[in-house]
């Protein structure tokens, strides 16, 4: 094995001049952008939206800030967490949507001079909750199925690279047609019978319901002056009660009809509030000063119904006043009310919730995983550049960038853990983030040893790809969902889940190293014999780790099952998936120890490891059976298939004889790569 310093580095020209400038510029650019995002607080122009964004509420079983509700809702309704207010009309005219006619399209990627005004998630949520008529006019509902557009008699809406967005006011007149389809689809017993059209219907249905919930969270959506309405309601209730009491005092026996007549005005209000509560809106009324904070958050609708008997929480009045100020465009008043409200609930003992709200909002805004994604991809391109001309500075710059990306990635991971009070992996989304993190660690360690860019390629590429996977998984909504009872154990999440996920990560890294081997060997002349051997050795070493992690992780899973259900092994699909990874890694190691496979064989087997792992990670969930199934994910299925096919193609390439390999073409037949088997390096260890 050659020393690291004897690797390509010495032949590289000494770095100087413009390259140094470009290299440092890149590093500083990313570092500066990240620092700016972290350090510069958000400025409010008029309304103190940033103060609204951090207000705590309870939704989806957990305390979260308005900002999280806004982002997750927009993801589910629109798929994108911003709402542009301007764009292109007919003939390239630029302007606000309502001023343009005809075909509308969002800013094209090449329109660098245009900066469309946009609603950020919290801007949009504030408007949706307090100025519902205006919110109805925003292009937020994404409807892509042409048949569904046809059914609802929709035009092209606002278009953005093939996606079509519509306003609530476009859809409302077609509610009847939609309802018929919703009823039909919900009667299908088996979800797998749903066609793409049916799924589009249900997606719109869910978006619709969510939008209705948000609009009715703080006040009934059709109320124009809710503060006044509250007064009327409570005064009416008091009057009705007084009348009943007065007549009873006179000794009158009230018949049901008479009683109804007295109560009728109050009932009209109560009916509205009951409808709000039944929508299952977020719980925005904080608990009273005492008691358990987790359990007594309430819905506005519920407290309104109870108000004549139990009194009205101040929060409802505050939000009503906020609504009036917001609709009147009175920013100073709005901001003053909001500041007052924050002080009130802090005094009432919600300091922890306010802090959590602020932290989570900061975490949302940090976009740690998105930022590290950009850094990784740049680093990856730099390593390719390094391989192309062997200028050491590109490798070193890539190293710095991967470190930077890794720092941000880690910060995001740790922040998430602190917010949730949980170990890193709690669901499929966080498993993707953690697999990427583990792969980057392994890649960095490899790079430290070999300094030939391979570790960096693995780190940046696997890091980038897994974060893409995570990004797509986040489209489902809240990624910090609470754990159901059986999973609610930090001990097993910290041991079984973390270890098994590291097993996935290392199997992927081994497979990815193998891909580097094949692509470099086949298509470039840069895969020297030493590099090839080194790569094979890395694959071997990582496969050992993978075996250790996947085995221990799998058995720990069994022990967890034994602790919660009384059976160590139940042949559940996810368990079997993990078992297959263990068996596969064991097979690779034994085949290699037995001398059955040599360098190239090991490389090809490692790529099969990618297929095996992706199957266990995603495939088993798609069977829709067993304790671990998270429902059928059909978009993911297509990607899984594409991934499997790509890996099969790579294996086919790996099987090509030496004469097709750019790097091995000139080696004597039988010599070089083939004969220099790993088995000679480490003979029969078993």
């Amino acid at each position, binding site marked *: *094995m050659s*020393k690291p310093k004897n690797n390509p580095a010495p032949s590289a020209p000494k770095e100087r001049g413009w390259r140094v400038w470009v290299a440092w510029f890149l590093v500083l650019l990313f570092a500066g952008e990240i620092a700016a995002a972290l350090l510069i607080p958000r400025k409010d122009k008029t309304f103190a939206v940033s103060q609204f964004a951090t207000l705590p509420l*309870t*939704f*989806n*079983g957990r305390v979260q800030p308005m900002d999280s509700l806004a982002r997750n809702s927009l993801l589910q309704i629109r798929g994108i967490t911003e709402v542009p207010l301007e764009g292109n009309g007919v003939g390239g005219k630029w302007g606000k949507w309502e001023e343009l006619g005809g075909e509308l399209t969002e800013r094209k990627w090449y329109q660098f001079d245009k900066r469309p005004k946009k609603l950020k998630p919290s801007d949009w949520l504030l408007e949706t909750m307090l100025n519902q008529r205006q919110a109805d006019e925003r292009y937020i509902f994404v409807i892509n199925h042409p048949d569904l557009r046809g059914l609802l008699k929709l035009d092209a809406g606002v278009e953005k690279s093939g996606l079509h967005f519509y306003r609530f006011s476009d859809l409302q007149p077609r509610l009847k047609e939609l309802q018929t389809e919703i009823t039909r689809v919900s009667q299908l017993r088996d979800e797998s019978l749903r066609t793409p059209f049916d799924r589009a219907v249900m997606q719109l249905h869910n978006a619709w319901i969510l939008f209705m919930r948000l609009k009715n969270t703080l006040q009934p959506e059709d109320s124009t002056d809710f503060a006044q309405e509250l007064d009327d309601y409570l005064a009416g209730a008091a009057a009705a009660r007084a009348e009943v009491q007065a007549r009873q005092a006179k000794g009158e026996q009230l018949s049901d009809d008479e009683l109804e007549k007295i109560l009728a005005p109050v009932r009209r209000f109560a009916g509205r509030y009951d409808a709000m509560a039944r929508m299952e809106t977020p*719980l925005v009324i904080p608990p009273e000063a005492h008691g358990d904070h*987790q*359990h007594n*958050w309430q*819905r506005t609708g519920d407290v309104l119904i109870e108000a004549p008997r139990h009194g009205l929480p101040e929060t409802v009045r505050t939000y009503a006043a906020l609504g009036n100020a917001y609709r009147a465009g009175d920013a100073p008043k709005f901001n003053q009310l909001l500041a007052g409200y924050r002080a009130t609930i802090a005094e009432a003992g919600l300091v922890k919730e306010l802090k959590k709200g602020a932290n989570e909002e900061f975490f949302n805004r940090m976009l740690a995983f998105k930022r590290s994604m950009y850094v990784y991809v740049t680093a990856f391109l730099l390593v390719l550049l390094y391989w192309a001309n062997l200028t050491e500075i590109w490798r070193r710059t890539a190293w710095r960038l991967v470190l930077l990306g890794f720092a941000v990635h880690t910060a995001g991971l740790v922040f998430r853990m602190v917010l949730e009070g949980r170990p890193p992996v709690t669901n499929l989304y966080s498993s993707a983030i953690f697999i990427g993190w583990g792969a980057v660690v392994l890649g960095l360690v490899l790079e430290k*040893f070999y300094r030939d860019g391979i570790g960096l390629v693995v780190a940046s590429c696997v890091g980038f790809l897994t974060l893409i996977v995570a990004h797509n998984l986040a489209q489902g909504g809240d990624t910090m969902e*609470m754990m*159901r*009872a*059986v999973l*609610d*154990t930090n001990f*097993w999440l910290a041991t079984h889940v973390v270890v098994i996920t590291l097993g996935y990560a290392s199997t992927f890294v081994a497979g990815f190293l193998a891909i580097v081997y094949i692509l470099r060997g086949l298509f470039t002349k840069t895969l020297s014999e030493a590099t090839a051997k080194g790569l094979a*050795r890395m694959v071997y*070493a990582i496969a*050992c780790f993978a*075996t*250790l992690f996947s*085995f*221990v992780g799998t*058995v720990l899973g*069994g*022990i*967890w099952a034994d*602790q*919660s*259900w*009384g*059976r*160590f*092994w139940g*042949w559940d*699909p996810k368990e*079997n*998936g993990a*078992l*297959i990874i263990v*068996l*596969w890694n*064991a*097979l690779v190691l*034994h*085949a290699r*120890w*037995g001398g*059955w496979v040599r360098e190239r064989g090991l490389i090809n087997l490692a790529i099969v490891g990618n297929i095996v792992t992706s199957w266990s990670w995603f495939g*088993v969930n798609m*069977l*829709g*059976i*067993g304790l671990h199934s998270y429902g059928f994910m059909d978009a993911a299925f297509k990607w899984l298939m594409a991934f499997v096919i790509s890996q099969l193609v790579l294996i086919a390439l790996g099987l090509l004889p030496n004469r097709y390999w750019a790097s091995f073409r000139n080696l004597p037949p039988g010599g070089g790569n083939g004969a220099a088997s790993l088995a000679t390096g*480490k003979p029969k*260890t*078993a």
Partner: protein
Amino acid sequence: MTNKLWKLLTSLRLTVVLLAFSIVLVFIGTVAQADEGLYQAQARYFKHWFVNGFTFFGHKVPVPLPGGYLLGTLLLVNLTAAHISRFQWTWKKLGIHLTHLGVILLLVGQLATDLLSRETQMRFAEGETRAWSESGMDYELIFVTDADADNEEVVAIPQKLLAPGAELKHEKLPFTVRVKEFWPNSTRPEFRAPMMQSQGAPLTTNGVGASFNFRPEKVTHAMDDKNVPVAILEIITPGGSPGTWVAPGWVDDEPMSSFLRRVWRQDFGKQLADNMAAKLTRPQTIEASGKRFTFSLRPARTYTPFTVTLLKTTHTTYPGRPDLPKDFRSRVRIQNPAKGEDREVEIFMNNPLRYAGLTFFQYQMVGEEMAAQRGEKPSSVLQVVRNPGWITPYAGCIIVGVGMVIQFMIHLVGFVQKRKTA
């Protein structure tokens, strides 16, 4: 010849081939669960020596495969044989020996679990006390009679003896039980309304058979379904036959009878439903040799030498998410007079109670709210497991983990040293 066989048995290639077959089997056995159901697939693929044709994404493939038992045994033989033939005691091999020892322990432990472990359920409402647990699958036919003023005598006949045509005798029973029919699964009992004519003749005019129709149904393998058997019995005393009786599994199986009551209430209203339930659960008796025997087909019981009383159930969900359980737990009292024990224990998810060779897990629960809706008392079901081999995976995991770490550390240290000297 034996030499060759020995060589084959100890070879690494056999290991690789066996591992490859295992991967294929596990994969196919997993995919087949979607078509065949979890239990059926488990039994057919993993708990047999051979698999006679398999299903693959809904397609039947008539290709035989080695089953889980065969592969497990061969792997065990291969591993053991390889160690016998190549065993060398050196520090360098310590990791590998430990790893393989742990794997052997796991394989043997799983086999032991497969053969020895028993799963039953203990179900009770708040305030009730149990000294037994029930099987989730098997039933038993019992005859109960008063032994003296305070004690009852129970004769229990396991389900597997209830084959059609069987004639069952027991020294404590002054009659013979002839099994006329035994249906491993049956449809919901249908009420024979007194005024309706067109229902055909009843199975029998005795007991519950006079008021309800029972029909056989195909045996189910689905995870969320259950087989409820029905036996049709003829009693033969020395003095002749008092007649034919129906013993349905629907009566003394609490979840089944409570399910029927709920369905009936929905369909017929509370009054009629309660009336029907009373008719269904009215004890059936036979008189012979001057004694009264009450009989019924109930879930097979396993008795415990101690009692468990359910004190309190707790079932919480997350705020605003009634569908997402946060915690469910049962507070129970264990009383064991033989040992002078009397203590309270809390059993909840991931926190089972291990006691007297049994492990009690929180399994199902009808919490306060749902119980109120159903007009019942809150109740809880504990899964009771007897598994003498439960410790093996714990030990196996530690041994294999340590073994692998040692082995890979040896590699890693060697690798780093080599790089330093190169």
